[in-house]
């Protein structure tokens, strides 16, 4: 029973940053902009919030700084990928390399290898124990005791889903992605919509970085994003850009990670192999999603993506 509760708690824990990346990332996806810079945005969100907290000691300033910096990165990505029509995959790779290079450079200049915030941040105090729920056996262990961002994340799934399907902005994002000419012909500012869609993603990536570095570990390292941005892209692909469905794929990743970590304890010598499992699970999920998509297709060939 404890093990199951642990696994479920860890699932929520590991899903959170990926869900955040997913629900923001779906906007760019729906606007027909493939944003693989999510990886770099996640890392820089973590880095900039950690850096700010290190010098001010304020969590709020840390988060605010991360949000602002990430808007800036989103603008750079959009300028090169949208305004100047560069290949967005190459722009994305460049941003990913640039963010990690900048973070490493700044740390070196400051004479640090990592940012340790154990003095500024008390992780235990950031965990929210929900009254009533925390006392329910089993469910209390699973649902209570997460940091505030985690709860916010699950609320955001629904909020951003409603924005996508029930508001003007969401409609425009979908129209721009589906038929740019139609959008132009009635005067929708296509680039503005695309920029905004990318920036929604940068903002949630900043939040995800804050969650990852501050709330969870009080620590920043240069490799801590560990491909979560790419996993989010995979989840968005599988979920065809639908916020709720894509979030479910993010949770599948969280579950795979939670299972790997919890069963690692029993795996002995091969426990190291378990680290690879979440990534392989995503490959299998991609395969299944693609198979279902194409199983009824009678067309030959590979569409230009």
């Amino acid at each position, binding site marked *: 029973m404890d093990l199951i509760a642990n696994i479920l708690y860890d699932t929520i824990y590991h899903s959170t940053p990926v869900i955040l990346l997913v629900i923001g990332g779906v906007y760019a996806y729906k606007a027909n902009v493939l944003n693989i810079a999510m990886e770099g945005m996640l890392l820089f969100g973590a880095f900039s919030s950690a850096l700010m907290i290190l010098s001010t000691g304020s969590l709020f300033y840390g988060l605010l700084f991360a949000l602002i910096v990430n808007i800036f990165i989103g603008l750079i990505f959009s300028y090169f990928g949208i305004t*100047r029509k560069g290949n967005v995959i*190459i722009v994305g790779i460049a*941003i990913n390399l640039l963010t990690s*290079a900048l973070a490493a450079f700044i740390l070196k200049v400051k004479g640090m290898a990592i940012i340790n915030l154990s003095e500024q941040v008390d992780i235990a105090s950031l965990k929210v124990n929900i009254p009533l729920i925390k006392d329910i056996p089993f469910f209390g262990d699973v649902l209570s005791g997460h940091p505030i961002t985690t709860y916010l994340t699950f609320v955001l799934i629904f909020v951003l889903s409603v924005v996508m399907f029930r508001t003007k902005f969401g409609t425009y994002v979908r129209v721009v992605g589906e038929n740019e000419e139609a959008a132009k012909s009635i005067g929708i500012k296509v680039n503005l919509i695309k920029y905004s869609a990318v920036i929604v993603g940068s903002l949630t990536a900043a939040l995800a970085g804050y969650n990852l570095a501050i709330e969870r570990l009080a620590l920043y390292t240069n490799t801590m994003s560990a491909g979560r941005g790419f996993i989010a892209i995979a989840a968005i692909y599988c979920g065809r850009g639908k916020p709720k469905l894509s979030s479910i794929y993010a949770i599948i990743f969280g579950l795979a990670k939670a299972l790997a970590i919890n069963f690692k304890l029993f795996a002995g010598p091969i426990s190291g192999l378990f680290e690879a499992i979440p990534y392989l699970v995503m490959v299998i999920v991609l395969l299944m999603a693609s198979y279902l998509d194409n199983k009824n297709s009678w067309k030959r060939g590979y569409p230009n993506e």
Partner: protein
Amino acid sequence: MKKTISNILNVFMPILLAFLIGAIIMIAIGENPIEVYGILIEKSLLDQKGLLKTIHTASPLILTALAIAISFKANIFNMGVEGQMLLGGFFAGVIGFTFEGLNPVIHITLSIIVGVTVGILFALIPAILKAKFKVNELVVTLMLNYAALEFVRFLAEGPFRDHSSGYVSTPMISESSMFKRLFESEITLFTIIVLIVFVIMYFVFKKTKLGYEIEAIGKNRDFSEATGMNVGKKIIIIFIISGALSGLAGAGHMMSDQMRFTMSFSGNPGLGWDGMLISLLGMHSPLGIIVAAVFYSALITGSESIAVFTSVPREIILIIQSLIILFLSIKMISKNAKAVAILEKITNKILRKDNKGVKK
């Protein structure tokens, strides 16, 4: 003419701009960029030892860049070069340290074959997923890179760990599987192999039916399918070649440079990612790749000197590299720009002078 000039400008402007921003960053942290760039160039290109080291460093990068180029040219985004290279290098190393006292020719050949085969096998996963099930290769290869990294980490920490070493590492490969140094420099036979492979790939790109089909597939997939190029089959062939080149790069890097597998085997950001920048810089053309690879390796060898001779962190080079990619993603100058027209005039003048000189 206009097109050539704008192409050249579109490669040089990003480099200049990236170095300029690098200089601004250095000034911001109170360093002298001219001095730093001076050391960078001097130690990597102007000094004989440095130049040979640069060429040695360029060798595996030429292969990973070709691996990227063949897939990007076909508009197939094989981001898995890094992972394919890593596995190829690792298993070439396993052959290297497992056997001892073999005939060097046999041992080296065997290691290379294993490295290449592993690279191909690993590349076949995304290839088959793409060709048979139309799974997006970009996302799959990105995932598989992480899986490959975790896999070799597990092997290096566990079954193949060299327990005499203080950090995570496999044993050193046997003498018989090492490429010997040539001309008392860092250059080895591996560099020669790379040059031979390069010539072959040049022909594949420029002169063969496969090269023609790759170009067509990259430029218009529907057209290629409709005119009977069998795109699915070609995707698998492209991945096989890409995987083979990556595996060879890893094996060569192991046997000519690293000699044992550590977690920093591939460097930062990694040979596969370096290859991507080189391929982009060389506009996915073989000759461009050679030039770009030497330039890029000069940055790497130079960055080591920067770390030794100045107090600027070597990560400045990483920043400059990523800025180059960022700027390369767009056309900075169109072929109708004024600057191009002016340069065309100047070049024409110079060329005409030369021609006259030849006639006389």
